[in-house]
């Protein structure tokens, strides 16, 4: 398995000189990627009046970054903080649970032959092709029969399933957990679950981090599911709440709070970007390993 950064340009005689044209092209694309984010950063320092009167990619006359920050957290008795807490709850329980379930199931599929194994494959991987949102309306109706709508469970339970995570762990476990090792543990009389939690889980670590990161992103960014499941703003995650703030600017008697939407957006991005940057070594090697399978 090639490590992502192992092939360094200068040491490999096969590698040609660096290309300036390529660099310029990539810089242009990088600018496209960055401009909205830079716009968001500059805009987060502006008052509402400043937003209207200044150029998007530079500061306005008065800098109101701290004011916006305070206003975002104190608006409507600190509802933003509540939304942040809700999001964290959905991420920790939803993404955490999804990672655990996908890891166990992927490992089970890779390392055990059991009746119904092929059926599990067929059903789960076939389900990937079914549009998730196609299931939204029936799921909503079902959950409302069960009395689950407008509770955190309505957001958490559907987040617990990650077919992509299951696939990644299945590939990863097939490659990196030697069957001989499991057999040795069995001979020693260790139970299967015990072996899993003490031995296998360590070997699976890069794959687990990758799955965790992607399920965290999926739940942190989840919009459609909470939108249909929740009607009480007290249970909103950040995404639905921000969109509601934004919609406040529309219609008769509107009270635009653009500065708060922009600051809120910035605050919503920051944690997830930091998580990606800090964990990049793990998820990049995890993904590469996931594609090794031939």
């Amino acid at each position, binding site marked *: *398995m*090639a490590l992502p950064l192992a092939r360094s340009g200068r040491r*490999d005689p*096969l590698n040609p000189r660096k290309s300036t044209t*390529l*660099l310029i092209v*990539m810089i242009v*694309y*990088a600018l496209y*990627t960055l401009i*909205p*984010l830079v*716009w968001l950063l500059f805009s987060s320092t502006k008052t509402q009046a400043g937003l*209207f009167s200044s*150029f*998007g*990619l530079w500061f306005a006359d008065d800098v109101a970054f701290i004011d916006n920050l305070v206003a975002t957290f104190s608006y409507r008795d600190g509802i933003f903080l509540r939304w942040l807490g809700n999001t964290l709850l959905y991420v920790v329980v939803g993404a955490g649970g999804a990672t655990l379930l996908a890891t*166990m199931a992927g490992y089970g*599929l*890779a390392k*055990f*032959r*059991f009746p119904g194994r*092929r059926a599990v*494959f067929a059903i789960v991987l076939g389900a*990937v*092709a*079914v*549009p*998730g*949102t*196609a*299931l939204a*309306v*029936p799921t909503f109706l079902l959950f409302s029969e069960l009395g689950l709508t407008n509770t955190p469970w309505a957001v958490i*339970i559907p987040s*617990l*399933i990650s077919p992509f995570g299951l*696939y990644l762990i299945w590939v990863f476990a*097939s490659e990196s957990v030697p*069957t001989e090792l499991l057999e040795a543990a069995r001979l020693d009389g260790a139970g299967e679950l015990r072996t*899993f939690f003490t031995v296998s889980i360590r070997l699976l670590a890069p794959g687990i981090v990758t799955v965790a990161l992607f399920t965290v992103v999926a739940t942190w*960014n989840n*919009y*459609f599911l909470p939108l*249909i499941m929740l009607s009480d703003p007290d249970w909103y995650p950040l*995404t*639905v709440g*921000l969109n509601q703030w934004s919609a406040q600017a*529309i219609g008769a008697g509107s009270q635009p709070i653009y500065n708060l939407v*922009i600051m809120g*957006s910035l605050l919503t991005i920051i944690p*997830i*970007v930091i998580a*990606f940057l800090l964990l990049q070594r793990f998820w*990049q090697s995890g993904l590469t390993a*996931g*594609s090794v*399978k*031939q």
Partner: protein
Amino acid sequence: MTTHTISTAPPPSRGRRREKLDWKGWAFVGPFMVVFALVFLTPLAYALYLSFFQEKLIGGTSFVGLDNYVRALTDPQFWESFGRVLLFLVVQVPIMLALALAAALALDSARLRGASFFRILIFLPYAVPAVVAVLMWGYIYGDQFGLTSNINDLLGVDAITPFAKEWMLVSIGNIVTWEFVGYNMLIFYSSLKTIPSEMYEAAALDGAGAWRTIFSIKVPSVRGALVIATIFSIIGSFQLFNEPNILRPLAPNVITTFYTPNMYAYNLSFAGQQFNYAATIAIIMGVITAVIAYVVQLRGSASEVR
């Protein structure tokens, strides 16, 4: 990732014969399958059930056979929304995947200075929630304080009008492209990294240039990843909802309640209480998506065998 994502074949395993058939595996797979049944299989069955019934003001719920399907297939609003996402799919997906593949090849080429910096930068938008991405771009597009208005002010004319009827789909396409090039780039890049370096050495000995290497070695090697990315993108396009729905308040006259099939199903159920018809629309879109994804997968793996 290779085509194995969709394949149901068990992974080749050396110690296979010695593993005995028992039920222990269910201890690991069971919990996943229980939740899976609750959030995937049951709603799917329920949607099917709903699609065969109709709720009437008088007489309550009654079985109507395929009436809902006949209605959907002759519904001009449904076909308009379907045509729109199909157009979106045919134009936006190739652009996005081509950009992603080009970026992955550039990052992998070893001719790029600062490759790891560019890799993380291009991937970054994937971590931005769709809501935030659309709000940002929506403001940027806007004529009040967006960059668009800055440019138009500079030019003195309304040169760029992202919310105009004829540009709206392009504006949405731009947002989706911005969000997902990085994700697809990473899929391709991971796949490129698995090409053994001996292949490159052999190619170099044969005197193959950079372009030759790209088209004879690299592109064929990422075919599996390309199939996967295409399938995900097809599913994503047919499900298009977040971007138009969040932009809708900014351009209510352009983005109708039936702008995409998903928005149509959503508005039918939550604004119109027509749950049965909404479920039918969802089932039809699910079937179309699954069939197209299956065909792409078959064609993709068939040409790989050849």
